[in-house]
């Protein structure tokens, strides 16, 4: 896939970092302000998709990215499931909130909810990146 013009590349390079950190902010403050794992994950993947579409991509380089995205996606959902199982073992039921609640409105509060947000964000961002990479690769395959 070919990239776009120099103007688009420069602007996207400047913006991608901002979008990425905004996504991380949405994820980390998901238990305090609107947002959460799903929204933040989609924003993080949006930063990567912006870079992919603007700069174009090598077919050789993207297979490594694809494997990493698949690994991160599986890791996210596995960690989410592990949290549920730990809740089942230490407490009484699936997804038991086994950590301390902390003071309300603090950064470190609400027990397992921030950790679950991070796991969902990893899974969602890797999954959406991997879908876009799949569509780019299939175009490559058809040209041959």
């Amino acid at each position, binding site marked *: 896939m070919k990239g776009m013009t120099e103007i688009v590349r420069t602007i996207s390079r400047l913006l991608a970092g901002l979008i990425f950190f905004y996504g991380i902010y*949405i994820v980390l403050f*998901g*238990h*305090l*302000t*609107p*947002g*959460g*794992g*799903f*929204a933040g994950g*989609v*924003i993080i*993947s*949006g930063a990567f*998709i912006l870079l992919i*579409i603007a700069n174009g991509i090598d077919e050789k380089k993207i297979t490594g990215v694809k494997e990493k995205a*698949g690994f991160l*996606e*599986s890791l*996210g*959902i596995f960690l*989410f*499931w592990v949290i*549920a199982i730990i809740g089942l073992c230490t407490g009484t039921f*699936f*997804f038991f*909130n086994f950590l301390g*609640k*902390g003071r*309300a*409105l603090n950064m470190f*509060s*609400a*027990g*397992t*909810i921030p950790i*679950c*947000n991070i796991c*969902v964000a990893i*899974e*969602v961002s890797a*999954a*959406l990146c*991997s*879908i*876009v990479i*799949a*569509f780019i*690769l*299939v*175009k490559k*395959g*058809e040209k*041959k």
Partner: protein
Amino acid sequence: MIVILVLLMILMIAGAVVAIQSKDLLSAIISMGIVGFGLTLVFLILQAPDLAIVQIVVETLTLIILIAAILKTTMKESKAKKSAVVIYSGIATVILLIIFLFVLADTFRWLPDFGCPDLRMSEYYIEEGLKVTGAANLVASVILDFRAYDTLGEATVLFTAVMGIWAVLRGEGRKK
């Protein structure tokens, strides 16, 4: 507020009709964008910022992917043959409309008024959510503590979708 809501709904319905009827696929996709972004505004007016954030981000990504697919392939709608299918679909539409109106007339009597929802379970979440889970954002406390099983199911759905896409679009099957 209700006037703005009704205007937005009319705009969204018009966008949906244009998206179905237009021959040019690019304008059909942009009309679909009207529906999505109108839905974002509706969520904002109804004071649901969580849903609005997710909706605007997902809508933007969907539009980008669809427009990329349109630009690479074709801009025109493929012409389908019009034949007896029109009559059968017309009969089916009329029957479904009659059933829909029949059910609707029965359901409307039991619906609570607009803006006065019938809260029983939700009242417990609103009153005790901060105390029980410690999360200031009530939506997060519902989707990741009270109803975390649902969220696990959603994450699994996304995971399965990605596995399906990779299985259908894999490179090995194409090269014979």
